[in-house]
Structure formats: C-alpha cells, structure tokens
C-alpha cells in the first residue's frame, strides 16, 4: 500500500501542470471557471493545442497517435485539467468512437477516420438514445435497410449532445428484427450533411440547448460505413460504454466544484459573518468533502487496478452513483450558498459578457444545479447502476 505517486508519476504530473500553465489560454479557463458556455471554436482551439502536444487522445495507443498512457497517467492528466479549469475534451470522437474503430473497424476505417478525429476534421456526435428508450439502449428502432452499396436509414435519435456542431454521427441502427433484441443491431457512421437529416435542439431545464434530436428520413449511408459485422453492433456498443466510463467518478470536477463552493461560502455573508463560518453550512461542506476524500481513493483503487490490467467491472457502477451524488450535492450547496441571487435566470449572461445580476460567482450555480440533474440520469441511470451492482457484485 502506498498512497503516494511514484517519482515518475510525480514528474509526469509536473509536466502536465507546466504545460497547462504555459498553454491553456486564460480566456478559456476563465470561461470554464465561471461556468460559461464554450463555443465550437473554443473547443476546436483547445483540441488543436492538445493535439500539437500529442496529448489529445489520452486513452489511445501510440500507434494511432494517442498517448499510450496507463490509467494512472490518464487520471493525473484529467485531474490537472480540471484543476486548471481546462475545457473538457469533447468525448464523442476521442473517448467513444475511437476505441470502437480501433477494436472493430476495418484498416480502411482506422486509416481514414482516426486521423480526422485528432486533427479536428470531423466533429462526431452520438446516435445511441432514441425517444422513449431511456436506459434501455437495446430497444433500437431506427432502421437501416440494405439497398445496393448503401443503407437507407430511417428513424430518430435523441439526447445527441453538441449535435449542432457535428458533421458526423455514429448510430446504432436495427438491421434485423430476428432473434433477441440485441442481435439485430448494427453500428453505422453517418454523414450529418446527408440529405434527409435534420437536427432540432432540445432546450433543457436550465435553458441551455446542448442536446438535440436528430431525425433521419431515408438517409443514404454507404455500406462501407458499417463498423464490424452487420447485426453485431450491440457488442461494439457495450464496448464503447465500458470505455466511456473512465473518469466516471468525476473526482476532478467535484474537486474543482468544492473549491468554487468554498470560495463562494467565504465571500457570502450570513448574519454579517462569512457563510463558511456558519456551523451548519460548514458541516454540509465538510460532509461532502469527507465523501469526496473517500471517493477519490475509491477511484484511485479502480484506476490502479485498471493500470495493472484488470478490466473495470461493476466497480465503475459504484463510482458512477457515488460520483454523481457528490457532484450533485456540491451543486446544491453552491446554489444554496448564493442565497437570493440563485433566483435570477441568467442564461444570457453565461454566453456573453453582460454585466451580471448580483456577484459574478452567482451567475452559474443555479443553471449548473439544474443541468447536472442529468448526471444521475444519463450514461445508465443510477437506478440501472444499482441493479448492476446488486446483480454483478452482490449476486442477488
């Protein structure tokens, strides 16, 4: 047992830290710190900076232009990124599609698509969820019928995050109605500029429009864009979900959120005293801080096992549940900390540089509280995670 990083790991952390200090544009880190929305250009700028250092694809092997890092290095990198308020790496191409292509794509597909993910030629989005499916991903109804060298795709995808920026979407489609529901699913790459595709924003409860519905109406997709074998897509989909779940605990986000919470609680006054001196509020901060300290170690235990080659199992479900509880509690406390100034609806202020209503730090918390209710819903709801834990670990 040794809670300390090795010398190599410390050297790596310092390297990352120095790089971020020298290369992360303050304009971007300010936006992240204040909870403002990033533009497509912001994301692309930051991706390009990371790519020029070779650090864009943290979970890709070196042969495909990735870093070749182990799980501990990736964790260090993500920690430092969040602590520095760096924009989050957009995951759809890098964390989701990339690993699937490397594992199941043809050589042609790998050779063509992977470099385009790195150099920003393509912005990918996700076509997994469908209306009414919820956490039941296997209930895919979007159909793809073979027609010569093409598939004709019809259906609807939803909850497509940042789909408004994307030129490509990877989709689960139904290519067969035979057998079990899982057996007739295929994994297809679709050009968003194809005729018959329409993207409509979904305004969320916080007023933001980060997710979309994607309508596919007789969309022609070259059969060459089928990944792996027809009707085997469920295997690839599950593989993707497993890889999506790295950093599922969100320790870095929670740590950054806790710092923000404390900063606000020191600035806000209650009865003329800093709010953080109020014993009951201090206890609520203390509680979530204690929970986070333990969760960070649980996370490192899983990361460490992954670095040693153990496949992440249902432990990631435990991290998902506890991680979202901690982050949502931090969100709730931060909203409580800003008091009456939680009430103004300030979506405009997040986008522009308007003179804020109330303190600058009071702009983001309410929206973040509302928006982050999603954390316990998406990526397999916490209810689904609990059922996984009960079956896979407790064997109930």
């Amino acid at each position, binding site marked *: 047992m040794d809670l300390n990083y090795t010398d190599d790991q410390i050297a790596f952390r310092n390297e990352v830290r120095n790089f971020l200090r020298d290369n992360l544009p303050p304009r971007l880190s300010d936006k992240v710190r204040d909870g403002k929305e990033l533009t497509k250009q912001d994301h692309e700028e930051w991706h390009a900076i990371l790519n020029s250092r070779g650090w864009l694809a943290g979970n890709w092997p070196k042969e495909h232009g990735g870093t070749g890092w182990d799980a501990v290095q990736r964790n260090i990198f993500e920690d430092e990124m969040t602590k520095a308020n760096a924009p989050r790496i957009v995951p759809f191409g890098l964390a989701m599609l990339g690993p699937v292509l490397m594992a199941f794509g043809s050589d042609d597909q790998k050779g063509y698509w992977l470099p385009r993910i790195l150099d920003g030629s393509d912005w990918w989005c996700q076509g997994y969820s469908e209306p009414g499916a*919820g956490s039941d991903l296997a209930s895919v109804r979007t159909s793809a019928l073979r027609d010569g060298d093409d598939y004709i795709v019809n259906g609807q995808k939803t909850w497509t995050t940042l789909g408004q920026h994307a030129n490509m979407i990877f989709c689960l489609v139904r290519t067969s109605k035979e057998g079990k529901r899982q057996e007739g699913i295929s994994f297809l790459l679709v050009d968003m500029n194809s005729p018959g595709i329409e993207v409509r924003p979904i305004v969320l*409860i916080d007023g933001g429009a980060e997710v979309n519905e994607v309508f596919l109406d007789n969309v022609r997709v070259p059969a060459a864009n089928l990944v792996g074998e027809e009707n085997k897509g469920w295997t690839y989909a599950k593989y993707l979900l497993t890889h999506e779940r790295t950093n599922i605990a969100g320790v870095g986000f929670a740590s950054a959120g806790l710092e923000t919470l404390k900063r606000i609680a020191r600035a806000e006054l*209650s009865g003329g005293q800093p709010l953080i001196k109020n014993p*009951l509020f201090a206890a609520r901060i203390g509680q979530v801080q204690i929970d986070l300290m333990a969760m960070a170690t649980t996370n490192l235990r899983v990361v460490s096992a992954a670095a040693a080659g153990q496949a992440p199992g249902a432990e990631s479900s435990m991290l998902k549940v506890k991680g979202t509880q901690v982050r949502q509690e931090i969100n709730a406390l931060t909203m409580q900390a800003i008091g009456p100034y939680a009430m103004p609806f300030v979506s405009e202020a997040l986008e522009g540089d308007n003179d804020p*209503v109330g303190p600058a730090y009071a702009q983001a918390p309410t929206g973040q509280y509302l928006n982050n209710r999603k954390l316990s*819903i*998406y990526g397999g709801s916490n209810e689904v995670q*609990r059922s996984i834990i009960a079956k896979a670990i407790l064997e109930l």
Partner: protein
Amino acid sequence: MNFNLTEERQMLQDGLRRFLRDQYTPDLLAQIADSDTGTSTDVWNGLAEMGVIGALFNEDQGGFGGAGFDIAVVAEELGRVGATDPLIDTGILGGGLIAALGTDEQQSMLEDIIAGKHHVALAHAEPGSRYDLSRVSTAVTDGKLTGRKAVVVNGGAADTLIVSARTSGDVADQDGISLFLVAVNASGLTRRIYPLTGGGHAAEITLDDTPATPLGDAGQAYAALATAHARATCAISAEAVGLMDAIRVLTTDYLKTRKQFGQPIGKFQALQHRMADVLIEIEQARSAVINLAGHLEAEPATRDIHVAATKTLIGQVARLVAEEAIQMHGGIGMTQEYALAHLAKRLVMVDHRFGDTLYHMDRFIALAVA
C-alpha cells in the same frame, strides 16, 4: 380541533381551482413566462373578481379573510398550476404592510390592490443582507433614499414600491428600520429588470437621493416586516405544497404510462418505495403548512417557531420532491418543454425566498431547541 375548511374557504378553493385549471393552459404559462409581470391582466382581473386578493385581507381592511388558512388555501391553488402571479408581492407583502402601517390616505390604496388595479413590490433585501430581516443599510437624507435593493420580486411590474431604509441604529439592529412608499418613476430610481428561474420577474433597484413618503412610524417597521414575512412564508409554503401535489400527480402518471424493460416503470419496487417516501414527506409538508397557518396570528415568539419549522421542512421536502421527480422522469424531466420543468424550478426556488433551510434551522434552534 377541526381539519375541514370552512364553507366559505371550501367554496373559494373549489372556484379558484376550477378557474385556474381553465385559465392556466400551457400556452398561457408560456406567455406569462415571457411577460414582464409574471401575470396576465385577464387572470389577475379574474382573481380579483373571484375575491382571491380580497381573501388576503380582513374585513376592516376591505377584504373578507386575512387569516392564515385564507392565505394557505389561495396560495396552494396557485401553486398547483405553477402560477407566477404576484399574490405574495402585491397582496401579502405590499398590501399587508400598507394595511398594517398606512395612514388613512395610504390605506385607500388597498381598494385598488384588492380590485387588481394596483401592483406593489417590497424592496427590502439588499446585496449582502441575504435573508436577515434586520440588516438594512439604505440611507435616508432629508427624507430621500440612497441605497441598493436586491432581487425585488415583482419590482418590474409594480406601480408602487415599499422601500426599507435605516433611520437610526446599527446595520443589523431591529430598531431604526423605516418603510417608505416610492413611485417607480421617482427621480434617482433605476431598475434593472430580469426574469427569474422559477418564473416571473424581479429587479435590482438603485436609489440615489430618491424622494419617498414615509409608511408608518420612523424606525419602528421591524415588527410589521416580520409579520408580513411570516404571512408571506405561510403563502409560499402553501404554494410549495400545491407545487408538490402537481408534481406528484405528474410523476405518478408518468410512472404508470412509461414503459421500460417491458413494463410500466411504476411497477419497479425501488421506484414504488421511493415514491411512497416522497408522498409521506409531502404529507409532512402539508401538515407543516397547517401548523403555520394555524399559528400565524399567535404571539410572535410562538408564530416564529412555526415559521422556522415550516419553512425548514418545506425547503427540504421541496428539494426531495423536485429531484426525485426529475430523476424518475429521466430525460424528459430534463427538458424545458415538459410541464415538470417549470413546476420543479419554481419549487426549488422556494428555498431562496424568505429564508432557506439553513437560515430557518438556525432560527428554530435559537427559538425552540437550545
């Protein structure tokens, strides 16, 4: 002991419920959400005609109610449809303070308020005062006001503002707080109007040597402010129970119709048990409102124990109900378009008016525990 409504209140409740159900179509809600007032003239006039505003005042004040249960009955119904009408601001805070402190001439405004023709907002809290009722630093010089007022709900739509200022004492003293009537177009007064997360609007108000007319005796406003806030707390707590009921119905309906893994998700025992807990807590909240409404006219020491207890519980249950409802809805519960979004946001925001769970637990400890 009797937990039935009087015949009059039962009639008011029934009529109001029918009226709001008819009026508050999704279209109207959306239209009001985009308006500057948080209400529509038609609805507000309709409420006035039904006597809903009058129910907040006693007969001496020109109304026909004014007791805790009158407030609770009316506010709960408004909550049930997620209404944003400024009943609390114009009626309970504005009208209530004028009724309590006004000269005969000032009292004459009540008739217009009850008739729905005059809107009021209370500009009391200041940046940094948080929920402390006695923390006032707006200054008075030669009868003119200078200072800043924060998150003045209904401040954009109001015809008249009631503004607190300090005429003596230290910044947090209860003694030395005075109230003034200020016209919204008075010189030196600027308003920055903005929408609220739970619907309706508020304003940041800056006063710079702004002329004002005293309301009540100089330096003696604290007791009336405390009474008005106790009544407003009763109202917003009852409104919260109405919101909880509406959210509970929406959620159980969804659980019955939404299918996943081959059956209605309401058949999953884990959700059933959590929903049972939600229901139990809503009944706790309902009882807490009854406790407050029943003690609203008690002496302040007793009243304030119930204010603190009820608002603490309401804030806790509000968060539970809103969060569980969104969680059980899943994705659809995250969308602005679905009815839950407005109800849940309005319910969550209840904790940010008139003191939150933290403020009121501290008060409760001081009053009733230690």
